[in-house]
Each structure stands twice: as C-alpha cells, then as structure tokens.
C-alpha cells in the first residue's frame, strides 16, 4: 500500500490512481518520419528496471490529471512526483517529497 502525492491534491491513497506505465519512453518526435525501428522501440521495448522507475499515474478518482512518479520497483520506496512536462529521471536525487 502506498500514498502518492498528487501535485494538485496532495497526498492520496494509491487506490485513487490508475497506472500508466513507464514514463521515460518518448513518443517519436516526428511521427511521419519515424521508422519501424523507432515505433518498435517506443511500443515494445522497456528498461524494466529493478530499482528506480519513473512512471505515469493518473489521479483518476480525483482531479483526473496525469503525473509522473519516481518509485523503486524493488523496495516500493517513493521518490518525488512531477508534472507531465517536467523532467524526472530514474536517477533523480532530489530526494522524496512524498
């Protein structure tokens, strides 16, 4: 069980959120020019880290906004959350704001 800090609503139970998967994958910048390899990398390939992971969550039972969360997949320790346009990396060391 964990509590996620929504940037808009504050700390809320994880059951209010829906999971959106790995947030480090980048949609091809220019879809018209993207090669099949680019699409394959975006759609199918995953780092799947055993440790810190940056992932999408939607506050679906609350404000319905998407956010990024840094979370450890091995220990379930939580790092900070960020807005969708803000950079957040698995190696982020700005500590936890949860």
């Amino acid at each position, binding site marked *: 069980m964990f509590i996620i800090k929504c940037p808009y609503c504050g700390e809320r139970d*994880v059951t209010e959120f829906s*999971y959106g*998967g790995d947030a480090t994958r980048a949609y091809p910048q220019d879809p018209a020019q993207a090669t099949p390899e680019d699409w394959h*990398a975006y759609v*199918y*390939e*995953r780092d799947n880290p055993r440790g810190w992971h940056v992932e999408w969550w939607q506050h679906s039972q609350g404000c319905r906004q998407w956010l990024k969360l840094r979370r450890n*997949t*091995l*220990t379930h320790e939580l790092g900070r959350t960020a807005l969708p346009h803000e950079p957040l990396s698995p190696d982020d060391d700005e500590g936890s704001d949860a």
Partner: protein
Amino acid sequence: MTHYSVWSLIKGGLTGQKNWTRAWRDPEPKSSYDVIIIGGGGHGLATAHYLAKLHGVTNVAVLEKGWLGGGNVGRNTTIVRSNYLLDANAHFYEHSLKLWEGLSDDLNYNVMFSQRAVINLAHSKPQLDGFARRGNAMLLNGIDAELLDRDGVQAMVPYFDYSESARFPIYGGLMQRRGGSARHDAVAWGYARSADARGVDLIQNCEVTGFRIEDGRVLGVETTRGFIGAQKVGMAVAGHTSHVAAMAGLNRLPIESHKLQAMVSEGLKPLINQVYTFGAGHFYISQSDKGGLVYGGDLDGYNSYAQRGNYPLIEHVHAAGMALMPSLGRLRLTRHWAGVMDMSMDGSPIIGMTPIEGLYLNAGWCYGGFKATPASGWCFAHTIAQNRPHALNEAFTLNRFETGAQIDERGAGPIPGAH
C-alpha cells in the same frame, strides 16, 4: 537414488524409514560445463531433465541464486490447461498437457496431476459465442472442449450466484475436462531429482552476476561462487529476465515485471471440485487436496520486483470472489503471497535464440507459465541441444515484435499488464 514405489514405501515402513537417501546431491560447481541453465525454477529444471534424458547432454549445471523452487514455480496457483485459440499456443500447450499426463511416471515422482476440469465462465451471450469459437478452434486442433449452459455449470457447482441479479449473471462456460491442477513443489522437486540422477549439477545459492562474452559468443558466467565456463548458456529466470539479460548486453527486452498474488483460505471439506475462472470479475478458484480454497485475480497493477502483495488487490480479489460465490465471505483467508511475473508485450512467451551465439532465452511467461513447464523445458532443451528451435516453439521468437508476428491470444495489445 532410491526408486520410489509402493515397495520402497513398505520397506521404509518395516525398517524404521532409514532407507531414504537425499533426493539430489549438493555439488560444488565445476570449472566449466557443456550447458549452464540460469534459474532453478520449473522451466530451468525441466530443461535440464530433458537435455539429459532426450538429448544425452549431461554435463550440465543449473545455477539458482536462492533455493530450488523458491521462485514462481513454488508460488503459483497450479492451473494446467491447453484451451487456446491461436495455433502456436494451442499446439505448444497441448504438447505440454500431454507431457503432464505422463509426468509422474516419467519422473518417478508423484506430481499429483489432477485432471479435474477447467471451466471458464461466460457472462453474456456474445461472450458465450466467443467461447464457442475458441472451443471449436480447440476441437479442430485435436484438443478436448465442451460448451456448457448455465444448468450445466450449476450441476457441477451449486454454490455460485446463478440469479439474474448477480453482478455478472452466469450464462455458461467453456470446459476442458483434461485440464486441472498439480502440486507445484513436486514439479520442481521431481524434475530436480530426475536431472540430478542423470548427472546434472544443481547448484543453489549461486547467483549469476555477469556474462563473459567474446566476439559475440558466450564463454561462461560470473557468479557469486566464481566464474563458470560454458559452451552454451540458457536463461530461465522468469520475472528477473530483463536485468539478467541486460548483463549480457540484451537491453530493453519486450518485458515488464509485475507481481501477482495468490491466496489460500482455511481448509474445508470438498467444495469446489473443478477449476473455475471468472474473467469478468478478475477471479479464479480451485481447491487444494489439503482443503484450502486457492484463488487469485489480477496483477497488482504496476511494475514491481517485490515478492509481496499489497492490500488493495486483496480486497478487490475478495470482492470479485464474493460476487461469484457469496459463501466465500464466511471463510477466513489464512495465507497470501506474491511472485514476480515476466509479462511479455503480447502475452505469449519467448523461447529461442538470441543475437549472442551460445546464449538462449526462455522468458515472458506472464501468469501462465506453470502449465507450460514440461513443454517449455522440452522445447528449450531441444533449442539448446540442436542450436535451433523445434517446430513447437519456432513462433515464440524474441524478434516477433519487430516483424509484426505477435501471438496476442487476448487481443489486448502491447500493454503487458492487460494480458
């Protein structure tokens, strides 16, 4: 090794049970082997058994970071079935089911395989039509299937909610009589004992920490017990595939690790005599020979390597269970646990070659890898020994996602949590 039989039991009874020997040795690793299998779960141990038995490859080590059978093979809910729609899956899982049918004899170990039937419940007419289509596909592939109406299900299990006001009214189901369950630990132990008796070294507390690869060819593995050389290395580490493969330079595989929980109730007299899956509610249930109801549901819902489950899903599974079988609410949950699943991007496994010579990959089992254990080991042993896949696993390649040849049984798309 003691051959297990009714005579060895009687002899043990008459001689104070002093005739039993160790089920397998505890050898020191040799400096090199013909084949190293990473992972002492069901698939790794089955691979070793078939390599030795069918291909005469006995200079083999299975390296396990913990203890044999401590991974998913000892954590799953043991449903065995071959009720698939797509040809590649149907043939592979049916081969597995046939191996299950002879497994206790093959291993001289009682794996308690019980063909008590597996029934998928349908909750609408279109869903029942879909099941009829899958059942017909199974029949065309030579696999047994029977379509049941509501009365047919009710005759087998009277305790479900059959009313029209049920959350998901029961319209019928698709039954595979030859499906059922088996004893998970016995499968790991039986394969281990048989592989050991044929000369395979089973090395526990030996974690693979790296690979030695030169000119695109594998030379061996680094482990917590030192370097061990090998002509060929097969990876069968289930939920740990991504980070073990990354040590060999195979980065970003089409896999996510998620956790799945299992739950067991207090023991009861026989109540549920078949295996039921209630897909609409994300719930499935059977009863173990000890009497506990064994059930589970969906993934916890986010990437995880933690072998422990979280409460929201336990509540969800029980809510779903009670929607199907209200009397479940009178029981106590006595145990629950989780395992780390290697969820692939199309819900089907990968058994085959890698771009590195001498390195083979067995992964992507999602929640269905227990039933696959015999065929997975059988096909992986063939692939390693012959250096090419068998017809039964040639569709389960690593590069099928690049070529567009996915095997997406559920049509769920590239969302690993949805398979």
